[in-house]
């Protein structure tokens, strides 16, 4: 209960501070839309020159991209802690976090919220509906629930990977640029993983499981039965990976020694 109250108070504060620079907020939302459009343009232009990507049609790839946008938006709104090392470890801000009465990771999530990202969910659902209509996908009454479960599972997979990498900073505070790399690798999960070689496919499934954010869960809606077992594993992967990442984070916090001043 306390956590919920704190959460909503932070959201209220966040909205106030964002509304101070309205023009910038609008530009930011537009630039998010642009960013989503760029990837779509890439797919559209590429399919001008080919009709199949390893047996997948244009609409299927667009559908996967639309699905990917939903968990990615949830991740972007709450777990986008790519600058954790710089902001909290190197500047010693973590000291302050540890004096707060709520869990340290939750406190950081509250401070680093970027609610504008949630607009990406609308784009994603819109893109999925467009592609779904072209593909004549029929939805059952239970599909929305499955969609929510899979999308949340994907968001937790994404979040877990970033929390795990942020946790590295507790042991080694030297600056690394692993974080931006994760955004790039995350993009791999948007394309059917069978276009990659086996090593990359294995990594994307079991080590950095970005395939569970895009292509595997989408396979359920696209009726690719050979990947159903992967699709239904998405929430399990999300819960397991996130639990592991919180555990590693908790261990990391005990190793934190503070940096300077």
């Amino acid at each position, binding site marked *: 209960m306390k956590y919920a109250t704190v959460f909503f108070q932070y959201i209220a504060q966040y909205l106030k501070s964002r509304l101070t620079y309205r023009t910038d907020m609008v530009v*930011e939302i537009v630039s998010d839309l642009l960013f989503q459009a760029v990837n779509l343009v890439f797919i559209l232009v590429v399919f001008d020159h*080919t009709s199949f990507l390893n047996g997948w049609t244009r609409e299927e790839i667009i559908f996967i991209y639309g699905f990917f946008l939903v968990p990615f938006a949830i991740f972007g709104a709450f777990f986008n802690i790519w600058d954790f090392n710089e902001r909290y470890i190197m500047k010693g801000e973590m000291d302050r976090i540890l004096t707060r009465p709520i869990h340290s990771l939750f406190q950081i999530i509250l401070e680093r919220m970027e609610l504008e990202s949630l607009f990406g969910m609308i784009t994603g659902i819109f893109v999925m509906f467009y592609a779904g209509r072209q593909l004549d996908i029929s939805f059952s009454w239970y599909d929305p629930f499955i969609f929510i479960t899979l999308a949340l599972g994907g968001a937790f997979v994404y979040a877990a990977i970033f929390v795990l990498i942020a946790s590295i900073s507790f042991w080694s505070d030297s600056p690394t*640029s692993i974080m931006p790399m994760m955004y790039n690798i995350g993009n791999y999960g948007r394309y059917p993983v069978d276009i990659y070689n086996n090593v990359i496919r294995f990594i994307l499934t079991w080590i950095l499981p970005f395939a569970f954010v895009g292509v595997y869960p989408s396979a359920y809606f696209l009726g690719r039965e050979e990947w159903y077992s992967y699709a239904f594993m998405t929430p399990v992967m999300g819960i397991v990976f996130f639990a592991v990442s919180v555990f590693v984070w908790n261990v990391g916090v005990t190793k934190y020694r503070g940096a300077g001043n």
Partner: protein
Amino acid sequence: MAKYIEMIRIRFLMMLAYRTNYYSGILIYSINIGAYYFLWNAIYGDKGAIEGMTAIQMTSYVAIAWMARAFYYNNIDREIAQEIKEGKVAVEFIRPYNYLFMKMMQGLGEGIFRLSFFSIPGMIIVALVFPITFSAEPAVWLLFALSLIFSFTINMQINLLTGILTFFFFNNAGLIRAKRVIIDLFSGLLLPISFYPGWAQHVMGYLPFQAISYIPSMIFTESFTGTEIVNAIFFQILWALILIAPIQVLWLIAKKQLVVQGG
């Protein structure tokens, strides 16, 4: 002039202090190029050539486009925005140099650093892993180098413009991000301009962005030949000259209505 050269040197040395960061940077770029390699292979399937480019030319295009990006890309727009927000820009105004030119030189220092510690070793590593063709003609390399200088200049000018706009918007993180997305798409970094539908190519012909990535990459992969190269470089020169005007105008207006928020 000596003081500007000193600026290049100082920024170069500053980057050198953090060079360990760059080894993981090479890995990032290689992984990125790898992703595109598999993706393009899937796109090509068993087609020999698309829009006159073979699959190997395409891999080389992607590799050189990303490695060249390390040279021309910088965060000078963000630095200018930061200095304006913190009020530091007021001090910069009274210093005995041209602020914008000084920023440009700092960007060049960064670019030269990345070119020598990042792009060149990175390109060698990438060439070992993926099939990439290098031209045997010294003239191609020379023209590529020339077009790369202009791609740096034009990207820098666009950065300066974005940075100066902070004077009017106060907070322009969103604009900076939008600019980056537009450049990624319209410069030909993600897709060669020749892949776009005709009308889009026509529109992009009136915009400066393809001078940043498309032109040097096409020259490098020898997809441009003869008069195409000459026209492309003239296109770059023209835009480098045109862009001077809006920068100067905005800069004059900005100086007049400067509001220092702190510092």
